[in-house]
């Protein structure tokens, strides 16, 4: 993998730090008038998810990380791995529990997810921003109650629990924003 000079630093660049691929969030040059310039960089470690700040002397080189994002369709979970397929080449990839993490509760078969690969191996799975899932369990609410005043918890087919308005019932399909984990609307079947 290529090395990057601090001059090439920008948001989105993937570099290696502490043995982990990292994404640069932002980069600021601090330069005393008569002194060494420094790059102050905020990075997100792509495996642990931690955000840390690092400092480099301007002009230093840093090892790049071979990280790419791919759009793949979710197929199934075999108990150990989550399987995804490239709908154009039909190539399949398997992600382990560590890579899938919390996203497991938003995986819907055939939905297109973003897999982040490091050296060809999945290290993160990002579900679509919105998914549609069936409610498998929720307390029967009062009929006629419309505006959600706080709502009630509902368990979805994947095991995810979201707050839904009181009028939404077991067996209905709801649309959820996976970034916030919040109910968006009912889906007409």
């Amino acid at each position, binding site marked *: 993998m290529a090395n990057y000079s601090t001059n090439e630093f*920008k948001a989105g660049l993937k570099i290696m730090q502490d043995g982990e691929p990292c994404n640069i969030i932002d980069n600021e*040059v601090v*330069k005393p008038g*008569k*002194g060494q*310039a420094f790059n102050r960089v905020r990075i997100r470690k792509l495996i642990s998810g931690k955000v840390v*700040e690092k*400092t480099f*002397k*301007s002009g230093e080189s840093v090892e790049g990380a071979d990280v790419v994002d791919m759009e793949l369709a979710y197929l199934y979970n075999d108990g150990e791995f989550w399987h995804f397929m490239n709908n154009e080449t039909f190539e399949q990839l398997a992600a382990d529990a560590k890579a899938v993490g919390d996203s497991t509760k938003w995986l819907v078969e055939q939905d297109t997810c973003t897999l982040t690969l490091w050296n060809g191996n999945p290290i993160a799975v990002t579900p679509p921003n919105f998914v549609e899932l069936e409610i498998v369990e929720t307390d029967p609410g009062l009929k006629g109650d419309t505006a959600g005043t706080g709502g009630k918890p509902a368990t979805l087919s994947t095991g995810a629990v979201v707050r839904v308005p009181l009028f939404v019932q077991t067996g209905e399909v709801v649309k959820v924003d996976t970034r916030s984990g919040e109910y968006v609307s009912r889906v007409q079947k």
Partner: protein
Amino acid sequence: MQLTDNWQPSASLDVLRQRAALFQTIRNFFQQRNVLEVDTPILGRFGVTDLHLENLETTLSFFPNQRFQLQTSPEYAMKRLLAAYGQSIYQLGKVFRDDEVGRFHNPEFTMLEWYRINFTMQDLINEVVTLLRDVLGAREVHQTTYQRLFQKYLNLDPLTASIAELQNCLVNDERIADLVKRETDKDTLLQLAMSLVIEPQLKKSDITVVERFPASQAALAELDDDERVALRFEVYVGGIELANGYQELTHAAHQQLRFNHDNQLRKQFGKNMKPTDFRLLEALDAGMPNCSGVALGFDRLLMLVTGVSDIRQVLPFSITCA
């Protein structure tokens, strides 16, 4: 920082009005004090030898064998005027520095630089503070030495500390720990501490003057009687490094040694060595009056006046859309 295709200005009309007013305020300030405005060439034969400054270079078809340098500051030419005419002078104009683009940096920027005959460093500090209070309104002023500043914030004497002591002191700060561990140049460590640890803790609303930098960072300042430090000062306001001044080195032989030393450092750091401005040396040799001089970033001062956080907002067009 990316280049953009926008045609629109980066500063608002309101800020451009404040920019024009600040030019006027500064010119009035110096007119009242009988300091002569000069505009020395920005395109010149020699650049600077400073380890951490890079000139932009260009060529002229009329002199095909000579490279020309855009000046990083009008210092050398102004000093030749000082040597020739012995008159206090100021310059308010554009300068250029390679490799600097950021929230506080534009490669082309406006510098206010002035020299006062027979001023000591303290006289000049007082005048800088007067100008800043004229422009920014009454603010508290703190003056301290580089040594006291490090003792206060890091409990460390920068003049006597070994490299290992500096590393031990700075390594607990996670943001810089990795760099501290691999860095073995003392001045780089001191600059790291100053820029990333101490500067952010200076009270933003106040004017902070730091004087007597280590002799290893003397640049073109005279050394103090205590030769471990130089008669160099910096002014910080609002977390911004605003001005850098010296009681000027006037001795040609000493100046030559500084140039040589700079070039040795450049070589050591893997940078090209720079030809030295022999005309400046001859001017010093002919006799430069005792004086103090300071360079102040005009655009940064305007950032403080207008309260914006990015230098692009005070420039008609920043480098990204120039």
